[in-house]
């Protein structure tokens, strides 16, 4: 597993030196590892966008000129294959698959006249924007760590004469100290009788989180729920997923963060972002 991850990292830019990677410590913790016998090793990757970026670089052209369709197909092929082998993938990867499947359908189906949904090209541009932005941050990180750094390349006074105290208070502590102390003690007291429940159903919160995350990408009417459900769940979980997603979407509509419409009973549900941002439910008790 570790070996495979290493290979994946080594192959990132075939033929090119990868000085950036050298600066990164090995990631110890595996991700996506779960109970079932088989797991997918996406250890070398920081999420689906990173995987896409990697696949895009494999196209060996500038990010602005990649074939988004080919990229989407490649990603979906990867996910399909994983699913056929009944392996598990982290939810993030599946959310991306749902979105890409939708993007693909938009790119391939000719545009209708009264079509209010975003065009495939607009969606492709959005994906390219996100990839470019991520790559920019990646480069920025490399440029940062390559700077002359204090304690490595540049040094402070080795024998400080500790005489100048600026803070008025005689005591010092940081907010981080304070929060760590608080969290640690509350946890110590609370953790004694914690049972970790196995999740058999899609919680409302889960569905809400996923919807809220995808909404950032929905600028116009989108029949996203079907893609979401197709990729995100195993058949036996489908009912609970539909129920939770639907309930969560109603909640978002109530908040004004989402609009929904349906042209006829049992017709696809169309969604688009509302006028307000979703309430950050991390804050809600």
């Amino acid at each position, binding site marked *: 597993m570790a070996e495979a991850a290493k290979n994946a990292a080594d192959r990132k830019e075939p033929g090119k030196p990868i000085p950036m990677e050298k600066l990164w410590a090995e990631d110890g913790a595996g991700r996506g590892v779960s109970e079932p016998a088989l797991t997918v090793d996406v250890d070398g990757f920081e999420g689906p966008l990173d995987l896409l970026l990697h696949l895009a670089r494999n196209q060996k052209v500038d990010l602005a000129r990649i074939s988004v369709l080919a990229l989407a197909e490649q990603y979906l092929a990867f996910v399909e294959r*994983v699913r056929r082998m009944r392996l598990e993938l982290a939810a993030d990867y599946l959310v991306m698959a749902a979105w890409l499947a939708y993007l693909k359908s938009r790119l391939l189906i000719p545009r209708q006249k009264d079509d209010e949904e975003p065009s495939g090209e607009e969606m492709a541009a959005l994906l390219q924007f996100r990839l470019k932005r991520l790559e920019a941050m990646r480069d920025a990180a490399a440029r940062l760590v390559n700077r002359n750094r204090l304690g490595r390349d540049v040094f402070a006074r080795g024998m400080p004469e500790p005489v100048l105290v600026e803070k008025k208070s005689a005591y010092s502590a940081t907010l981080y100290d304070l929060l760590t102390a608080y969290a640690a003690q509350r946890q110590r007291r609370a953790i004694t009788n914690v049972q970790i429940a196995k999740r058999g159903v899609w919680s409302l919160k889960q569905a809400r989180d996923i919807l809220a995350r995808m909404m950032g990408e929905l600028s116009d009417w989108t029949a996203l729920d079907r893609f979401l459900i197709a990729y995100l769940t195993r058949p036996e979980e489908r009912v609970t997923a539909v129920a939770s997603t639907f309930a969560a979407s109603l909640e978002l509509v109530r908040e004004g963060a989402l609009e929904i419409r349906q042209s006829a009973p049992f017709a696809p549900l169309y969604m688009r972002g509302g006028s307000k941002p979703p309430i950050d439910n991390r804050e809600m008790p």
Partner: protein
Amino acid sequence: MNESANVVPFRAEEKAPAAEAHDAPARSVAFAEAKRMAEALVFASAEPVSTRALAERLPEGTDVQAVMEDLRSDYARRGVNLVRVADCWAFRTAGDLAFLMSRQAMQQKKLSRAALEMLAVIAYHQPVTRAEIEEIRGVETSKGTLDTLLETGWVRMRGRRRTPGRPVTYGTTTEFLDHFGLEELRDLPGLEELKGAGLLSPRMPSNFAVPQPPADADALGEDEDPLTDVDLEELGLLTPRVEDD
């Protein structure tokens, strides 16, 4: 006799604006003495010293900014430089002598790739909420990454966003600037370019260059190779692992 710009160690005091020295010798004396005091105060400390703290200790009426700028140019070409970090001042060994110094570099804890990436996102996009960081990185924050960054002292909670839910915002600290040798956030490498390219905005800017899609979405461009069915296993993406029990 300075043969090379590189070796001029100190600007001579004589080069101070002549007018000033002639007109107000008393002020000049006071100024030079203030420089000595500021120099001693900042030199003594390993931590950057704030302009405010200096103002409190220097004789009343001292133009601290001018004193510090003067000192900075005194030290500009020496082995030790006076640097500004946000609103603070510190002496640091010259960057070009890193080769010499790294022999005594202490072992530094390496940050994970995820942590570094998140640090960059926070630095360039601050103030930024966790949800926004996740949006940019396209992945949920794994446990401990943000924690690690807070622990380094480079990242801090800045406040709360005035939106529903009032999410906490994150930003960088003065220690971050000090560690990476930045005077201020505007000195972040490539910041202006990134801003200009619209890559620091949370949403895709309307002027973001949308490449003209080919008429036939399936047709490859001139400089495109068809994708081979990439062997995912070869890429190391798919490694079935049998759990031993």
